């Protein structure tokens, strides 16, 4: 075979594989959207779910997902920022650092069911926190932390060492160089990472079934008292998220329209995650442009 033919065959194969991947993705998303979108209505998005009757919505589940995401980010971002800065800027090259890196690696590859059950035993049962948004947020932090930490570390590392030298040679301390120069330069990458990880957190179900629970008690959106058990802001109440709702409706739903609810919820979930991805792309580009050209 001459090199030209080899090249043609290789390119042909690559295109075929790419086509297969794209086809799978498009048919999957297409199927979910086609079956689900017709069921999405204002009523569906804004009314509460039903256990026995048809016509239930996903208002509470939607809110729970967003609130849980928010709490998870509040827990994981500061820790990830600290560890990311440490690993990128301060960690000496020795075996301790290697152990930390490996630990993070392992943590990010643990199956979510295992982490969910672990958090169930430790936080829900042992520490008596019960099924709650807080337990769920802690479980999700377990996943989110490694991803975010690695993302922040890499974003910081991708800032040229010339910038560090410039800062230090101006007499700035290492800390001021990092917070005043390196971190702002890394912001676009970090934001993109946060939004992408938010997408993953948003779609997680397995880890939440045993931590945030599967029930959506009636909550009052006008009650702003965080400590009141009926307040929508109370982090100690059990909270079924959208992803968990889909799982539950499919496995034990007995409403006549269980199928429709499940397709509609899936479509909403997919649309939101796609939006997260687009947003990540868009904000990342925007910030990068803002930092590197005219404003």
């Amino acid at each position, binding site marked *: 075979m001459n090199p030209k033919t080899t090249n043609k065959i290789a390119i042909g194969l690559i295109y075929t594989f790419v086509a297969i991947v794209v086809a799978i993705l498009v048919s999957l998303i297409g199927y979910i959207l086609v079956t689900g979108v017709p069921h999405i209505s204002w009523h569906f998005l804004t009314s509460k779910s039903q256990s026995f009757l048809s016509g239930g919505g996903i208002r509470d589940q939607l809110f729970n997902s967003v609130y849980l995401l928010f709490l998870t980010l509040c827990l994981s971002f500061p820790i990830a920022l600290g560890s990311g800065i440490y690993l990128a800027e301060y960690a000496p090259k020795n075996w301790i650092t290697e152990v930390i890196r490996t630990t993070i690696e392992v943590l990010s590859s643990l199956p979510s069911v295992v982490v969910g059950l672990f958090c169930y035993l430790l936080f829900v049962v042992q520490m008596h926190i019960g099924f709650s948004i807080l337990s769920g947020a802690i479980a999700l932090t377990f996943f989110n932390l490694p991803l975010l930490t690695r993302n922040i570390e890499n974003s910081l590392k991708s800032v040229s060492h010339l910038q560090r030298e*410039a800062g230090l*040679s*101006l007499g700035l301390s290492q800390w001021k160089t990092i917070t005043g120069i390196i971190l702002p330069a890394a912001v676009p990458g970090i934001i993109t990472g946060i939004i992408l990880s938010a997408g993953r957190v948003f779609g997680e179900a397995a880890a939440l079934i045993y931590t945030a629970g599967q029930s959506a008690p009636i909550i009052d959106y006008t009650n702003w008292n965080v400590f009141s058990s009926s307040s929508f802001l109370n982090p100690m109440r059990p909270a079924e998220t959208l992803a968990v709702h889909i799982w539950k409706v499919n496995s034990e739903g007995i409403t006549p329209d269980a199928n429709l609810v499940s397709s509609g919820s899936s479509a909403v979930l997919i649309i939101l995650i796609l939006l997260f991805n687009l947003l990540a792309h868009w904000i990342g580009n925007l910030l990068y442009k803002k930092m590197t*050209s*005219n404003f």
Partner: protein
Amino acid sequence: MTGILQTKNVHLYYGKNEALHGFDLNFNENEITTLIGPSGCGKSTFLRCLNRMNDLRPNVTINGSFKFEGKDIYSPSIDLTELRKTIGMVFQQPNPFPFSVYDNVAYGLKLAGMKNKHKIDKIVEESLKEAAVWDEVKDSINKSALSFSGGQQQRICIARVLAVKPKIILMDEPTSALDPISSSKIEDTLVRLKKDFTIIMVTHNMQQASRISDKTAFLLNGDLIEYDSTQKMFVNPSNKKTSDYLNGEFG
């Protein structure tokens, strides 16, 4: 004559490798001194000792005496922040921060705690003027520094150093990444800056060294071969190696 910066018996090791083999160099105030020599002879290494930028590298051992205005640069009691402000540095690659021109120059001041906006504005303008780049940036001072040409970026970097009011400016091949016109603008700038600052510069450009410097030091494989007034070095070097190098016979 005692200089503003005196170094004695400078040895530097990268791990076990000795990169500087022990030499003395003194620098006079308000002069431009250039360090020349073939690639790998230790020019950057030596320059980075003078504001302790080698501290950032692991496994570097430095021996010898470094005295700035009589004070030991490597004394444990020295304020590193203060030292690096007093002995500023311009790098080979222009490395402005990814911020506006204004912020690039103001950053050192702001992070050092200066609050007075009026005063900062004034210093920013003065520094950009001193670095001969004011006319080119004054209408777009809020534009990102990265949107300017390499030569303009380098002069912005010079302004950034000038803003923190150093006494000595170290420059490691500041024009090697630039076109001849930008280079000659920077050369003019340096000659003008000489009256207020002491400049120590590494260059591979012999014409540049002979055009602008008062003194020249020739390094070879970590040794100081000759150190004299530029005039003397270029017209009548006393060491055979120096004349060989200046005639382009090695390096």
